């Protein structure tokens, strides 16, 4: 299992592409099978041979779970600013522009209205390849607005997370996205709108420590790393040998943090069933 965990989330947030030498993205890191891209897409990016769940880009994810043609994106124009004038080896504005060019997205979350198995909902889906799915002001605002739309329409919110944590280029404001999104969930709860959190690989740090953990129901994809602190840092700090399944969805389930692990082909019907149950309640 451990072989296909990316233990290097912490230092590759800004890398959209897998580092060279790590194998082709369509080669299964678990069993070595290689697929054409259309084969993988047809199989929802699950290895037909061994069941490994490959990463899914946000548009494809939406196509996988929303009813065809129902997704209406909101807040398309929303962008993070650069409140700190942040500059490390590169300017933050430059990194943002590069990420937008690479992904075609304004930031690491896409949100909008949709229906899942004919149940209306709001969808908020994260894109890991946009600066490691890090949460800055734009992601926080998009999520908060998605909560508000769900509350207003009294429909469930479904969030699909994939994130390396807060976006440190926005400094303390990125940390403030934690209480911001938590506050948004509180407003959602006050409106009695349901919230289903789907955690995919990897959901870590600031996203795990805020809205992702506050779902009425929390499900995870198999093999997903769900940890506040990634294994590399834990290993460096404690100098212990980590358990093989450290931080994985399976371990999180054993420790009581996840309601169910749902395989990708089952995700849409599972969400449909849940949404139907929530719709009947009130």
């Amino acid at each position, binding site marked *: 299992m451990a072989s296909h965990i990316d233990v290097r989330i912490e230092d590759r947030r800004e890398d959209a592409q897998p580092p060279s030498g790590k194998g082709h993205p369509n080669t299964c890191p678990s069993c070595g099978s290689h697929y054409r891209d259309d084969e993988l897409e047809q199989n929802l990016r699950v290895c037909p041979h061994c069941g490994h769940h490959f990463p899914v880009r946000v548009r494809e994810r939406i196509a996988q779970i929303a009813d065809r043609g129902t997704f209406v994106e909101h807040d398309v124009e929303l962008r993070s600013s650069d409140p700190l004038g942040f500059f490390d080896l590169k300017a933050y504005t430059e990194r943002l522009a590069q990420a937008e060019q690479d992904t075609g997205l304004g930031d690491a979350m896409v949100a909008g209205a949709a229906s899942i198995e004919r149940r209306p909902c709001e969808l908020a889906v994260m894109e890991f390849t946009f600066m490691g799915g890090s949460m800055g002001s734009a992601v926080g605002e998009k999520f908060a607005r998605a909560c508000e739309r769900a509350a207003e329409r009294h429909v469930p919110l479904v969030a699909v997370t994939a994130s390396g944590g807060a976006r440190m*280029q926005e400094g303390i404001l990125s940390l403030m996205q934690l209480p911001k999104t938590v*506050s948004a969930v509180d407003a959602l709860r006050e409106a009695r709108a349901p919230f289903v959190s789907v955690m995919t690989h990897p959901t870590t740090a600031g996203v795990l420590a805020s809205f992702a953990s506050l779902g009425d129901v929390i499900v995870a994809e198999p093999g997903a790393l769900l940890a*506040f602190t990634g294994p590399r840092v834990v290993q460096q700090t404690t100098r212990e040998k980590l358990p093989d399944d450290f931080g994985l969805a399976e371990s999180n389930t054993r420790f009581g943090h996840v309601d169910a692990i749902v395989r990708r082909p089952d995700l849409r019907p599972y969400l449909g069933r849940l949404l139907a149950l929530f719709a009947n309640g009130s």
Partner: protein
Amino acid sequence: MAAEPKQSEIEQLRLRERLAKLRNLPLIGGVSVGGELARLERQIERIATEPSADEVWHSVELARHQDRPYTLDYVERIFDDFVELHGDRSFADDPAIVAGLARFRGRTIALVGHQKGRDIRERTHRNFGMPYPEGYRKAMRVMELADRHGFPVFTLVDTPGAYPGVAAEQHGQGGWIARCQLAMVRLTVPSICCVIGEGGSGGAVAIAVADRVLMQENAIYSVISPEGCAAILWRDASEAKKAAAAFKPDARHCLDLGVIDGIVAEPEGGAQLDFDAAAALLGDGLAAALDPIADLDADERRRARRARFRAMGVFAS
């Protein structure tokens, strides 16, 4: 969410707002430290000037200074009749977070704060102020007790961060940091937070979701440690000073960004030089922050708190 004014206008607006805030902060007027107004005026000047990279780094050093007063040093100076409460009712008592009831200027309050250790033994015992999930659960329990009885909640933040250990992960620290924030958002009682040293990431914000958030003059509040940031972005932990200058964890910048509501002055040279004076200033700061909100309608206050955090961030759309 209307279109925002230009950056330069915002800057000017902010500068004016900030200066007005600084002049108005009663604690910075500092009557309680005995009329040393000239010194305090200098302090205002100092705080009012945008800090240089060196000054930011000086804050980082003072915030982590081994002689800096910790939560319990303030508790014994600011509060009366402190009764410490222990345990998360599930699994352990986490010494990295202290919690209890106390009297503050005639009124009962609940206190929750990170606690670092002074000597090696206590440091280990307190886990350097890095909480486990048990600590957040204890915090939540005591805050809920305060809520039931109408006691205002004070939180003092001073942690390098959540503990990056195997058991802390297994016991769900991500989830508990989230739930602790949610518990604070939902409080019906007033809440005041002050960052008194290191406000390190998730471990800090877990207990910092208050109606009013203050920082001591030399405290820092940040999403990652300067060393961690440097290691990731500069691929070199020794570039910490450069990283700190870039992500600006000092109080002045946090005030500018609207993250905190006020700065609590420290004795000249830093709180570590005079615990009593630092405590007097902090006490005044807490009182000044609490008084205006203590008697508001609970629902209104709660909504305002939620709106305060809902508004965090700078973006364009």
